[in-house]
């Protein structure tokens, strides 16, 4: 991925926010015990997290990265940070970075915010926080005890120069119109901009110039299994900017309805299961940073396998048809029988229907029903075997 290949290696490799970058560097140069922690505020995708990691690397700190989900409760904060702050860490020279600090919620977070503020008041190691905005009430208490550095969006023309430099290094070309489109669509998010450029250059959907934000699930799944290389498949996967649940479901329904041999199907389902577990973990812990691993799991599904086509429903058409039509007939049968037996329809279906069918099969019961139910009863009797 170009976004990985061209990830800045030093602070001076970054683009934009020059004054903010200099201010952070100055803070690290002058840092001593008790110096107010830093709060980096700015929109996503402009390098707040990147600069924290780079500065740690540049100044020889061992970064301890946390996010809002790690600092939910007081006990959790103390569990993670007390050893570091008490200098009993085996980490060497630690530095704490708390990402998405504006994600801590007041009521649900069991003292997390106040415990964090207590730590911020007496820092014994460099502490850097990052947030997308600082205007909420919960940020007020944090802002009082930190030095705030604002990060702003990067001017589009500067992004253009940055992008053209990458294209030059890659020996690739993109029309001026496409470059403007890429920069405009990515709305200042550098990572998205590079990914989108790569997808354009490698020929993924270049004619329509559909952005990765707009690619639909069907095209995405089909293009994924049709891709000629794992790199292409990866780009398609990253291009499917849809709800993760929807993404997992789309791959599941497509695979389960395709004609695959049991061994391949088992392998694919194992991968889907792994991605489902990751999603479950994200939902349970609300640690959305884990989402970045979803595509790395799903990419294991890639195997230029044109037997797999997108399917919306996770059941085969014959089965779906049966549910649709036979289901309606069973409902109608159950309402008739429920009246006769003084039961509810659902009780009849769950408790009595199997016995009624068995009796009809053994010819110990004859029901006077419309002819239309004949087929259905025969089918259901077949299933009793």
């Amino acid at each position: 991925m170009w976004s990985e290949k061209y990830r800045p290696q030093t602070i001076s490799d970054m683009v934009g926010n020059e004054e903010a970058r200099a201010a952070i560097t100055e803070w690290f140069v002058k840092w001593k015990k008790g110096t107010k922690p830093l709060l980096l505020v700015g929109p996503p995708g402009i390098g707040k997290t990147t600069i924290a990691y780079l500065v740690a690397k540049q100044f020889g700190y061992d970064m301890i990265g946390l996010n809002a989900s790690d600092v939910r409760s007081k006990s959790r904060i103390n569990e993670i940070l007390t050893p570091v702050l008490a200098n009993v860490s085996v980490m060497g020279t630690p530095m704490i970075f708390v990402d998405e600090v504006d994600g801590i919620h007041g009521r649900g977070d069991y003292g997390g915010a106040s415990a964090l503020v207590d730590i911020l008041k007496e820092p014994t190691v460099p502490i850097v926080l990052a947030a997308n905005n600082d205007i909420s009430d919960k940020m007020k208490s944090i802002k009082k005890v930190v030095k705030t550095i604002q990060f702003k969006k990067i001017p589009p023309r500067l992004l253009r120069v940055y992008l053209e430099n990458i294209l030059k290094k890659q020996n690739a070309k993109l029309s001026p119109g496409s470059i403007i489109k890429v920069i405009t669509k990515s709305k200042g998010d550098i990572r998205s901009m590079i990914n989108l450029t790569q997808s354009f250059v490698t020929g993924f959907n270049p004619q329509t110039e559909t952005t990765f934000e707009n690619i639909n699930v069907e095209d995405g799944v089909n293009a994924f299994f049709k891709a000629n290389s794992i790199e292409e498949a990866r780009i398609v996967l990253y291009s499917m900017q849809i709800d993760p649940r929807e993404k997992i479901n789309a791959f599941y329904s497509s695979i389960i309805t395709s004609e695959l041999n049991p061994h391949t199907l088992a392998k694919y389902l194992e991968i889907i299961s792994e991605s489902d577990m990751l999603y479950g973990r994200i939902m349970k812990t609300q640690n959305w940073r884990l989402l970045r691993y979803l595509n790395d799991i799903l990419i294991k599904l890639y195997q230029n396998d044109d037997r797999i086509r997108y399917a919306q429903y996770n059941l085969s058409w014959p089965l779906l048809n049966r549910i649709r039509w036979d289901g309606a007939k069973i409902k109608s049968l159950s309402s008739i029988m429920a009246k006769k037996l003084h039961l509810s329809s659902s009780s009849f279906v769950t408790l009595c229907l199997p016995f009624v069918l068995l009796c009809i099969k053994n010819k110990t019961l004859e029901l006077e029903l419309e002819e239309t139910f004949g087929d259905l009863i025969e089918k259901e009797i077949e299933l009793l075997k």
Partner: protein
Amino acid sequence: MKFPGTCIVCNEKIPVNEIGLWAKGLGVKHEKCAQINELQCIVCGGPAGCDQCEFQENCDIPNVSQLCICKKCSEEKDAFDAYQKYVNKKFSLLNT
């Protein structure tokens, strides 16, 4: 200013008696912060030419990082190298 406030643009304090521009529901800003400045070209030091920029419609001038690059400098060969060179020159701390 009748009461002290914090500028919504630069985040600095605005003391009593200083001129500030206030709007209900928005907040207050310094007089100088209220002026929409043209971005500056970091390479040549001149104005970035925002009124003729190809991204004029998509660039939120007050809310972007204030150093940009003008059309002429951006069309030079190795424009990004020049940008990096001048950033490092202007912000020597970044070479630390």
